[in-house]
């Protein structure tokens, strides 16, 4: 399962979960799937800036610390993950959807990077 990280935000240190991710590539786009159980559409925050892709997921309901846990195998923290994507993504055409706790991101490549077939003109 996902690992946890601690990030310092302003003055307080917060714990985040690093979601597990699959990335697929074809000639036109990248497709990214991230497992983020407990995150709704409103909680997702995706930023592409400075050649970096930042994924944040805010969990809809947090667990009370006062809960009397009998078994505790996972924690309900917010999600955070960052990738370096370079400048080969068309950031205006990025689409995202979240369903059953899985975020699906479609990141189209920039037009000039797509493979192009060069026609040989007959003389």
């Amino acid at each position: 399962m996902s690992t946890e990280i601690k990030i310092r935000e302003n003055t307080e240190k917060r714990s985040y979960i690093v979601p597990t991710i699959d990335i697929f590539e074809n000639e036109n786009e990248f497709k990214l799937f991230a497992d983020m159980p407990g995150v709704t559409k409103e909680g997702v925050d995706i930023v592409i800036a400075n050649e970096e892709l930042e994924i944040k997921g805010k969990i809809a309901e947090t667990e009370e610390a006062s809960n009397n846990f009998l078994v505790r195998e996972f924690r309900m923290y917010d999600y955070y993950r960052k990738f370096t994507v370079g400048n080969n993504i068309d950031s205006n055409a990025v689409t995202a959807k979240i369903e059953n706790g899985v975020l699906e991101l479609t990141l189209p490549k920039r037009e000039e990077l797509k493979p192009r077939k060069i026609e040989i003109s007959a003389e």
Partner: protein
Amino acid sequence: MFYTYDVLDDVLKMSDAFEKFFGDANVRRHYPYINMYEKDDKVIVKSAMPGMTVEDVSIELVNSSLIIKGDRKQIDVKNNAIRSERNFGCFNKSVRLPYDVDRNNVKAVLKEGILTIELVKSEAARPKKIEIK
């Protein structure tokens, strides 16, 4: 009394010490991970199972165990994977309940990849105050 020394005894002892030291980070756990806690007369079991729909999961109550079964299917993506960290396939997990529960009063909801099962303690498992005369 005989005592046969086995080098593995020490290894096991050491791994127990490690587990104790690192707390829940090293606990042997099986997918899907669950949290279980009490709330008044209820026992609540939460399980994180991203990508699962209601049709993919089944829950059974057998004796005093809750059995969670499911199959996570991989969507057919015909592109080349450049990173794959997620796991797919069948799972089967049995969770032992600490109390007797009311079998006819179980609620289960699957929302945003989190399964929440609400069980009510049976009459016999609830604390009963005894009057002193």
